[in-house]
């Protein structure tokens, strides 16, 4: 049996370094995959430039149009809830802020623990709801692959293990914290090679979309 403290130190040391390295190189490779293909020149006389409309769509596509909201309210509302919840827990939980500060040399104020705790609980419930939706909605069922469920499980485990560690449900604490850190590392390692890469590439996809519609005179 590995000593829990040794396990924690391993997750904070070598495992963390490997995870960051694979994450960084993987993301770089995925971005290169996109940019080295590039685009053919477009000879059609544009109605507008590409940069402005492209950047606009990067932001505006976060908000669903009212028709889509009415036809897919679950997707829109629950999607927003868990994405924001995940980001709050990731970026505003004080121990995370401390970690960011130690890595980057700067950080920002965190939120009080009880608030992050509540947000995390809501996020977990929302994530479970997305799984149920994926398993039951005809469209999601039809288009889902093994990867969708794998990515869901990893994302859920990151949040759940953090929640359990905070509430001291798993003992000893070094084991609980080590499991949380390890799950976050698995998240980082699979990110570049799964749909989690959308965290980066959706910005590019939205830009291309906005640019393509924009040059034809449509705000997309």
């Amino acid at each position, binding site marked *: 049996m590995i000593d829990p403290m040794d396990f924690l130190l391993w997750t904070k040391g070598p495992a963390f370094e490997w995870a960051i390295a694979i994450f960084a190189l993987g993301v770089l490779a995925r971005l290169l*995959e996109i940019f080295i293909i590039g685009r053919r020149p477009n000879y059609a006389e544009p109605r507008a430039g590409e940069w402005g409309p492209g950047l606009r769509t990067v932001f505006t596509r976060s908000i669903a149009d009212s028709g889509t909201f009415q036809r*897919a309210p679950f997707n829109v509302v629950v999607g927003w809830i868990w994405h924001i919840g995940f980001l709050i827990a990731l970026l505003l939980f004080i121990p995370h802020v401390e970690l960011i500060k130690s890595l980057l040399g700067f950080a920002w104020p965190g939120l009080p623990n009880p608030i992050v705790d509540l947000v995390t609980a809501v996020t977990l419930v929302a994530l479970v709801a997305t799984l149920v939706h994926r398993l039951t909605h005809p469209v999601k069922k039809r288009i889902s692959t093994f990867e969708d469920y794998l990515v869901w499980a990893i994302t859920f485990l990151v949040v759940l293990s953090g929640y359990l560690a905070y509430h001291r449900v798993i003992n000893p604490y070094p084991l609980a914290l080590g499991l949380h850190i390890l799950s976050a590392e698995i998240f980082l390692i699979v990110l570049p090679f799964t749909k989690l890469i959308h965290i980066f590439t959706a910005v590019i996809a939205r830009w291309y979309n906005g640019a*393509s519609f924009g040059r034809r005179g449509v705000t997309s």
Partner: protein
Amino acid sequence: MSELTLDRGLAALRAEIDGPVAAFFSSCVHCGICATACPFYVETGDPKYTPILKVEPLRRVWKSEFTLLGRLLSTLGLTQKVTDEMLAEWEELVYDSCTMCGRCSLVCPVGNDIQAMVRKTREGMVASGHAPEGLIAASVRAVQTGSPMGLQWKTLQVQIEHVKSSTGLEVPVDKPGVDYLAMLSSMEVINFPEYLEAITKIFHQAGVTWTLSTECFEATNAGIQIGNKDVAALLVQRVVDAAIKLGVKKVISPECGHAFTAIRWEGPNLIGKPYPFEVVHIIELLDELRASGRIKTEGKETDRLSMHDPCNLARKSGVIDQQRNLINLVAENFVDLKEHGKFQWCCGAGGGVSSNERAEPLKITAFKRKKAQIEEVSPERIVTMCATCRTQLEEGLEEFNMDIPVVGLTEMIADHLVEKA
């Protein structure tokens, strides 16, 4: 034409993959929101019509050949392959159940331009021999006769004579040095000859110098619909040659949606260089004439009118305000459909669906979305500006026993012209 094979199909798909495609497939999270934007899914409830699923052949080629992980996995034989059986199954998804209306591209949360990828996927379908008979026949007729419906100049000549006798105006033919070359669509010539009469009257009043060309009058492009660049480029080149020969400044795309996409947006890229002339849609031109006071109208339609925006014109080309400016010029009781302009719903017939006889039942099913939109505002007539949309609206409304006539906007404007003294 050389033999159509899976290898050629795969090569065609490979050639279509670019940075945007890589960004789109990388970003898809399988949320399924695109389905809610698709009239074929919305009206059938069948998840196989989910837009992103329609481009699965393209995705598989991208994944196995354009990603590091995919290349590694495919050397181990672990990636999903595109097979002839798969493409045969996908033919219905790529053609029968997609009008390339682009609504999915506007709602995808990660910004995937799915419509553009369907257009690309069709290139692979054609090259591998998996395109619908109806579209192949239309393409062959377009290449051989100049018209996807096999229409010949002599038929148009008859129309021209009719216009001359009913208006007393000349319809200029092969007149060099004028400002505009007017293009037509065969469907317009056959089903809606009033269009030619309308532009003849309007241009006469506005003092627009224009001409038709005996060498090329067809604006539509079966190559764009079926998804074959060679055919599409050949058809565009005919328009370009006619315009250059006559020395016109601008080419007018008729009341047809995809013809505008073909000539305006895809054309220069198909022939690999910019045009020495401009391309305008008739509705853009009419609105310019309105704005500069060159069209003078009198009287207004008094019944309740609504409007169907052709996808290619509105969502895919940004012509949205122009048709509203024009209708407000001649109608006092105009009401927009709730979702209109860039968020309008497709009529269900574009993108080659109407040339694909096999897709007829699906085409009418998809129309139910438009029908529901129309019922929401209960207009007495519908105005549109695309011959394919207009035909589909007429057939669809007839199918559901809805007594709502469909009118072309250009002819409505022509009906209100102040007679020149």
